[in-house]
Structure formats: structure tokens, C-alpha cells
């Protein structure tokens, strides 16, 4: 059996003691909250149901397997129409095309997202127009949208970033006023909802990633485009036929989707439980604030962004990004993989600085406006990069109670040591703010 790569965790985690909070920091030689040999997390688990589903699916035509999965997931989301795709990026492209976005149109999107949101707009041969983010939700700042609308604007595509639904009710009002399409980027937001309506079914169209690291994973890579109106769905299908582009999902991915969908409610429940435990613990600290969630909104916590409050610990005389860097180093040594997840506004990434597009500047050359994509135009996002840290995998099923409790204790332990944070921050070499370094994708 040595040839078999196992998912099984090799060692149980001891139940953590609250006394750990008062022990020496691991960075300075103390015992880490999570031992070095017990930091592994696995997701998703492949169970016998997945293997059985594969054996069943292989008896059917590939298209039937893909259609079965698409239909089951469409019903779960509550969308009227769905097209399974090879990736989240291709689903966003299809959603935009289905919504009627044509070459030279403008699509308003937030500057803080994964680059695929903006590249999907370019793939639709349209021009991305970026807003700043709301400093609390980190989603699109709705108050900026109307000022960006021009005669070329065709759609608004908010991102439910990290799994928190964007303010779709407010955006829908703007869309109604200016006759624009509302397209959701629901790539982080599986099972997330607003007043119990699931993301993906609320706007005119939506795209969603189903890749392996998402809350709802299929067999490695995949996506789904959703549509409210039949005409938009048919427009997307016609595009696939006319363009020749192959965006089709692998039946292997779809087969996994069928069995993993059965477990999505369980994954969601574990993630919500873990998020609540961690948020309750962070509320007891001065240094850390948990994610903000408006009333009636259900956050799916694909990622969990923690805000740092250096002033509450008397650290506001230091550069905030240095305090963040110091905290990151300290918490990593305790065994919690906290990271930046993006470091630069998307307009500052090379494809938008250069505007090469498909070649020879197309489709950017279709615009009458010479847009300057400058990161200084997004101060809320820059501030967020300086004073937040993100944990990506630490909430997901099957993270055990002992493990999430250990994460909470690790943050509480850092909160106890402002002097140590100061010491590390002051000893940092000359580092730049995150957005002055080369852009990283994730």
C-alpha cells in the first residue's frame, strides 16, 4: 500500500489548552499552538460515494452525465437555466455574453477580485471599468457605480468576494434605472444567499467556479453559468456555436459534482460553525476583527479576511503594513497559514496596464476613452491590503473542532503580545507596501 497516496490524517490533534494563549510565541522559540507535524488540511475528501458515482456515470453517455449534474445544481441554486463549463472564468464569459455584452461595451466590476473577473470581461471583448470597494464588506462600493455609467455601459458585475454577497438589491435598483444587466460573479459564493435567495439566481446571469479549492468542488476544474431569462441562455448557447470555442466540462468533473453536491450542505454547515467559532474568539481580542456580514446576508466563507487594529494596541506609530507583516510572521509560526490573497488592485496587473488584449490592443482599442488603470484610484482597497490578513482553508470541512479552536487560540496568543509585534515590525528589513510588489494572483 506504500504506493497509495492517502488523504487520511496521520495523527490526531490534541485538544488545545487555553493556557497556550499565555505561552511564549513560537517565533521566539516557544511551542507553537499547532505542532509542525500536524498542520495538514485536506479538501475535498474523496469517498466511496465519489468512486461509486464514477462507476455509475461511466455507464452513461458523457453528455448525459454532464447534463444530470448541471440540472441538479441548477435546481439547488434556484436558477432558471444553466450551462456547465470548463472553469469559472469561462462561465463568467458566457454569463456576460448571454446577458448581451457585445464588443466595445463597458462592464463595471470591482477592482478587488481574482483577475478572472476582469479577463472574462475582456474575453467578451468588452472594457472593464473598475470601482473601489466598500471598506467594510470588501465588495463593490455601490456608491461609486452611477458616476461610472456611460452610454457604452452594458452590465454591472459585482463579485461576492470571499463568499459575502455583494449588495445586489442596491445594484439592481441602479440596473433598473439605467437599463443595465446585473451579472453575478459568484465564484466564491456557493450556497451564499441574500434573504435566503441563493447567489447565482439573483441577477440576470451569473458565473461560478467549481474548482478544487472552492466550497463546492467538482473533479479538479469546472464552472457553471446561470441565466434568468431564456433569451439570455439561448444567446450564450448561440455564442458557443458561433465562436467554436470549447468551454465544455469534463464528464469526470461532472460525475464528482453529482456526488459532492450531496455533501454540500454538510460542508456549508461545518464551515459556518467554524467561522462562528473563530469570529466569536476574534471579537474577544483588541487586535483582530472578524468579517462584517450585513443582516439577512449569508456569508459562505470561501475565505476569511481578518482586519487588524494596530491602534488598539498602541502600534499606530508604526507603518500598518509592517505591523501586518509582523503579525503574519508570528501567526504562521504558530501554525496558521494567514496570507495576503491578492496584493494589488486588478487594474494594476500587467494585462490592464498594457491593454494588449487579444493582440493589437483589441478590444481596448474599441473604446473612445483612454482609460488610465491606476491603483491610486482605489484607496479603500490599498488600505485593505495594508491592514488585513486572509485565511483560506482553515474553515473548511472536515476541519475538526480541535483544529479551529487552535486557530482561535493562536490569534488570541498574538493579541497578548503587542510588544513582540512591535519588535518584529521594527526589525523588518525595508519592505514595501503589498501593492508595490509584483502582482500575485492568489
Amino acid at each position, binding site marked *: 500500500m506504500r*504506493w*497509495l*497516496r*492517502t*488523504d487520511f490524517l496521520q495523527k490526531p490533534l490534541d485538544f488545545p489548552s487555553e493556557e497556550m494563549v499565555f505561552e511564549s510565541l513560537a517565533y521566539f522559540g516557544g511551542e507553537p499552538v499547532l505542532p509542525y507535524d500536524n498542520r495538514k488540511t*485536506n*479538501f*475535498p475528501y*474523496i469517498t466511496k460515494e465519489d*468512486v461509486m458515482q*464514477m462507476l455509475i456515470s*461511466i455507464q452513461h*453517455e*458523457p453528455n448525459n452525465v454532464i447534463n444530470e449534474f448541471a440540472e441538479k445544481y441548477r435546481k439547488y441554486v434556484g436558477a432558471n437555466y444553466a450551462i456547465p463549463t*470548463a*472553469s*469559472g*472564468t*469561462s462561465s463568467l464569459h458566457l454569463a456576460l455574453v448571454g446577458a448581451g455584452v457585445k464588443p466595445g461595451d463597458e462592464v463595471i466590476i470591482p477592482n478587488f477580485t481574482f*483577475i*478572472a473577473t476582469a*479577463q472574462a470581461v475582456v*474575453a467578451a471583448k468588452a472594457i472593464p471599468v473598475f470601482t473601489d470597494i466598500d471598506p467594510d464588506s470588501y465588495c463593490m462600493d455601490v456608491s461609486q457605480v452611477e458616476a461610472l455609467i456611460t452610454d457604452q455601459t452594458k452590465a454591472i458585475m459585482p463579485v461576492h468576494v470571499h463568499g459575502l454577497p455583494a449588495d445586489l438589491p442596491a445594484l439592481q435598483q441602479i440596473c433598473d434605472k439605467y437599463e443595465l444587466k446585473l451579472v453575478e460573479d459568484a465564484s466564491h459564493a456557493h450556497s451564499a444567499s441574500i434573504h435566503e435567495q441563493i447567489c447565482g439566481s439573483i441577477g440576470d446571469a451569473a458565473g461560478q467556479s467549481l*474548482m*478544487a*479549492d472552492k466550497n463546492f*468542488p467538482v*473533479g*479538479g*476544474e*469546472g464552472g457553471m453559468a446561470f441565466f434568468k431569462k431564456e433569451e439570455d441562455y439561448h444567446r450564450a448557447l448561440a455564442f458557443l456555436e*458561433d*465562436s*467554436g*470555442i*470549447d*468551454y*465544455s*466540462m*469534463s*464528464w*469526470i*468533473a461532472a460525475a*464528482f459534482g453529482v456526488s459532492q453536491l450531496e455533501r454540500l450542505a454538510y460542508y456549508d454547515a461545518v464551515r459556518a460553525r467554524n467561522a462562528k467559532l473563530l469570529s466569536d474568539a476574534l471579537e474577544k481580542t483588541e487586535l483582530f476583527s472578524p468579517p462584517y456580514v450585513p443582516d439577512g446576508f449569508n456569508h459562505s466563507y470561501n475565505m476569511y479576511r481578518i482586519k487588524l487594529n494596530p491602534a488598539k494596541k498602541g502600534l499606530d506609530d508604526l507603518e500598518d503594513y509592517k505591523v501586518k507583516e509582523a503579525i503574519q510572521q508570528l501567526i504562521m509560526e504558530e501554525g496558521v497559514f494567514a496570507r495576503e490573497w491578492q*496584493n494589488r488592485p486588478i487594474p494594476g496587473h*500587467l*494585462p490592464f496596464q*498594457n491593454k*494588449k*488584449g*487579444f*493582440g*493589437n490592443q*483589441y478590444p481596448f482599442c474599441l473604446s473612445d476613452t483612454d482609460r488610465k488603470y491606476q491603483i491610486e484610484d482605489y484607496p479603500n482597497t490599498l488600505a485593505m491590503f495594508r491592514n488585513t490578513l486572509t485565511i483560506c482553508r482553515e474553515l473548511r470541512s472536515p476541519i475538526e473542532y480541535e483544529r479551529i479552536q487552535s486557530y482561535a487560540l493562536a490569534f488570541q496568543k498574538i493579541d497578548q503580545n503587542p510588544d513582540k509585534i512591535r519588535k518584529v515590525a521594527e526589525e523588518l528589513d525595508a519592505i514595501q507596501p503589498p501593492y508595490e*510588489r*509584483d*502582482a*500575485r*494572483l*492568489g
Partner: protein
Amino acid sequence: MDKNMRFQISFVLSRVLNSGIIMSIEKNEKEIKGLENAIAKITKLPYVSTFNSYTGALHGALQGNDIGHGDFVTLSNTTDQEEKFIDWLGITNQYAMEQDTFERFSVNWENIGSFEEDLQQPSTLVLDFTELGFGPCALMATEDNRMWEKAERLKIFGAFDLRTMWTQEESHPDLQPGIQFNYRISPLVAACAKLSLLKRGEMVENRFFAKTT
């Protein structure tokens, strides 16, 4: 689906599922790399890039040749899908020129044991594995490292994006990306294609055995 094909797919899939390969990207880099290495060995084209569709690999080969919107390509005997896709990219096909810009070839269960013998010694090749039945899967292989680099730049999470993710340093500032698509192949599909290529060794042996007995 053909019965013989179903047997081949079941065989490969069972082997992949029982090897403990799971879906995580980081843990399965070996599968995608393994597929690329296998193709490099078979085609003798050292630089290989994987894609999650045939049109993706076609796009990669065009990009590798610096052919984009408003440019021209020479490809003979194109299918309806190829014509549509090239047209959608804004590229014009010049038929009946001296030589195709690059060669395209489809691998299936009939020719998997010896497909390299049917190639015209290309310097750049687009190989389609979709007919094997695991889902869309294709590669671009080339003898030119610079072409490979340009094709990889087309991919979100291509080789250069992944490098920047870890180092936060742009390794190729002279080769900056334009439009990018998520052409990343599922590691599971890549693992199936890779195992199919390994199994071809048995087919080659059987063919040899049939000839000598």
C-alpha cells in the same frame, strides 16, 4: 460511446482513482507535469503546455507564434470549429500557402500506440486528446522555448503566474500577458491522459508481438 472505448476508459479511470490521486491542485502538479513530460518524450518536442480544450491549445499555438487579433495564419484542411474559432479570435486564415504554421493531430484509442509515426516532424504541434473520452484535453508541444513561454502566458495560472504567486517577482518582464483564459486542465483528466499514454507501451508491445509471431 463505443464498447471497446468504454473498457479502455474504465481501465484507466480505475487505475487513476485507485492510485490515491485527488483533486487538489498543489498535490497534483505531478500529473499535469507527467503528461507534459510523456508528450515531450514521445514527440521529441521538449516544451509542452497543457490545455483544457482543443481550442485552448490551438489558441496557445497561435499566441506562441505571435498571431493575434488582426493577424494571419496558414492552416489547411481546417474543420468548421477551427474556422469559427480562428475567426472569433479576429485572425484570418490564408489557405494554400506553402506550409501550415503548425501541425494539428487528434489522438484516439486507435492511434495512441503509434501516433508519432503519423506526424510530419513538426516544430510545433497541437495534440487533441479529447477523443480518448475523459473530457476536453489538449496540448501544444514545440521545440522553441520562447513559443512555449508565450503560450503559457495565455493561461491564468500558467507557469509564470504560478511562479509569481510564490516568489512575488515577475520573472519575465519582457514577456507580459494580454488576454488570459483559464485553460487549466483538471489534474484528474490529465492523470487519465497520462496513464493512457503509459498504457500505450503495452499496445506497442502487443503490436510488435503480433508482427513477430
